[in-house]
């Protein structure tokens, strides 16, 4: 049944994004909001809104009963979960469906399966998607470890098969080193867990983060090409691109086709992302996990393909088949997104939930801003620090970086410290310009003092 009245069970910039997509389809929008979010932009922009509880997320955006009550009271026939909060909760999906409503996303079973690391790895292997080569269980003794390492290739990481965390982890570059390190790792594992069993897997030391956007209707799936999100701080992405310039066309095609195979194998419905580690040194990619929801960085994919991912999610949730075939989805140019967080990058990224005093956004061809701010808006301290995303699109990556720097310089969010200075400094970095980055690049770069008031050229 087509979606006609959509409850938005999320907040912030993604709530605005969902309102816009739903309106483009003629769908009536209902914004659920917490007491702290009554002044939020999407409350004004949606056709109607309903308060679901107090500020803490556990009492509002994570409260399944409150959301279902709001859906009943507003006669909603579908729920869009956005990202975060309940977007990957099988219990929420089941509660929504038990209430006779449509969940905009995959089935509870799919979310459960792909949310389980072991089950997801098995599903990936079954669909022919490469995973990080490992010993598939414990190995005992140095000889066994050497044998496994020979098959999976060096460098390898040895760690305790029992327990978790970083205890007993060693990286060996070759067989000689493994002969020395494996007994140490086994002793440490024995001491820590009373079990000297080891696990051996390929060590990917400075990987890039590459991910593939897919769309499915439960039967058929397509990909919308890949993104690179290697610039991360504390495992949070800060800058994302489409496509990944490090890939050649053959690798890109193989990677994206493998993602479609996995999506079809699990009868995927909705928008999803398969995340991979990419090893520059060997040109290999390895599946790490699947996110069964729309992602923060989806706009870069929309910019290079022209596909409206959020609208397509709503259409397929309403029972329609995918509106496109793989051949319809062409790559055009290069796009970059930077996350604008209410944090002070010059003060260890301290959160800064200020009041917006003056707001200027850049405008022009190939510039997009997804945000939920308005002049005078008090940013609540209770949620994520993401306040907006600046996205640029240009024919080449070089031009995109230039356009980004210019757009950042004409952005002004008064009264609030933001990560704009970080992005200005990154846009000037020779490594970023040359694409010489990986997931372990940004933190040492920050620790080395590359982010100073001078380096950012920051007018604020």
């Amino acid at each position, binding site marked *: 049944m087509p979606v006609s009245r959509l409850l938005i069970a999320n907040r912030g910039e993604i709530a605005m994004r969902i309102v816009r997509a739903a309106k483009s389809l003629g769908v009536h929008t209902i914004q659920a909001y917490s007491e702290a979010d009554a002044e939020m932009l999407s409350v004004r922009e949606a056709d109607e809104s309903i308060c679901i509880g107090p*500020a*803490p997320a556990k009492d509002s955006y994570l409260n399944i009963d409150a959301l279902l009550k709001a859906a009943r009271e507003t006669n909603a026939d579908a729920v869009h979960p956005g990202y975060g909060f309940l977007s990957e909760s099988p219990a929420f999906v089941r509660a929504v469906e038990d209430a006779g409503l449509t969940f905009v996303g995959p089935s509870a079973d799919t979310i459960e399966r792909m949310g389980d690391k072991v089950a997801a790895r098995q599903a990936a292997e079954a669909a022919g998607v490469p995973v990080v080569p490992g010993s598939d269980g414990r190995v005992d003794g140095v000889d066994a470890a050497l044998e496994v390492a020979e098959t999976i290739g060096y460098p390898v990481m040895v760690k305790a098969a029992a327990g978790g965390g970083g205890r007993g982890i060693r990286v060996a570059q070759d067989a000689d080193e493994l002969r020395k390190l494996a007994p140490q790792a086994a002793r440490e594992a024995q001491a820590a867990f009373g079990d000297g069993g080891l696990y051996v897997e390929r060590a990917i030391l400075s990987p890039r983060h590459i991910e593939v956007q897919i769309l499915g209707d439960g039967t058929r799936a397509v990909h919308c090409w890949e993104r690179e999100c290697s610039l991360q701080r504390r495992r949070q992405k800060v800058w994302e691109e489409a496509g990944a310039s490090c890939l050649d066309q053959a690798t890109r095609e193989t990677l994206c086709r493998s993602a479609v195979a996995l999506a079809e194998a699990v009868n995927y419905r909705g928008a999803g992302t398969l995340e991979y580690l990419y090893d520059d040194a060997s040109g290999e990619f390895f599946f790490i996990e699947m996110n069964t929801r729309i992602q923060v960085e989806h706009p870069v994919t929309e910019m290079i393909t022209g596909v409206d991912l959020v609208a397509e999610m709503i259409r397929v949730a309403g029972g329609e088949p995918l509106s496109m075939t793989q051949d319809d989805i062409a790559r055009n140019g290069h796009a970059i997104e930077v996350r604008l967080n209410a944090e002070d990058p010059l003060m260890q990224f*301290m*959160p800064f*939930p200020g009041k917006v005093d003056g707001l200027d956004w850049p405008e022009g061809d190939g510039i997009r801003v997804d945000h939920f701010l308005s002049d005078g808006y008090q940013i609540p*301290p*209770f*949620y*994520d*620090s993401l306040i907006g995303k600046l996205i640029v699109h240009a024919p080449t990556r070089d031009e995109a970086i230039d356009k980004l720097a210019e757009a950042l310089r004409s952005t002004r969010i008064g009264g609030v410290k933001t990560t704009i200075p970080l992005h200005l400094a990154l846009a000037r970095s020779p490594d970023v310009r040359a694409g010489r980055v990986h997931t372990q690049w940004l933190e040492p770069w920050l620790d080395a003092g590359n982010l100073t008031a001078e380096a950012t050229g920051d007018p604020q």
Partner: protein
Amino acid sequence: MTDIQSPLPGTFYHRPDPDQPPFKAKGDSVAEGDVIGLIEVMKTFIEVKAEAAGTFAGYEADDATPVTAGAVLAKLES
């Protein structure tokens, strides 16, 4: 009496963890720099420290409740 104020808006916690006792109880001695609570702001936890020494007189803001910047969180007797 000295007020200990919140440096930021957010959610104030008396305990390092829900299973653990509060940082301070009434009558405890407090040294300058002692942590008396946490403020959760945008998913980040910031320690609230005493800026003077004294004797803890009690929390003024309840545990796990929203506070504004400058709100009085606790009092010290000097």
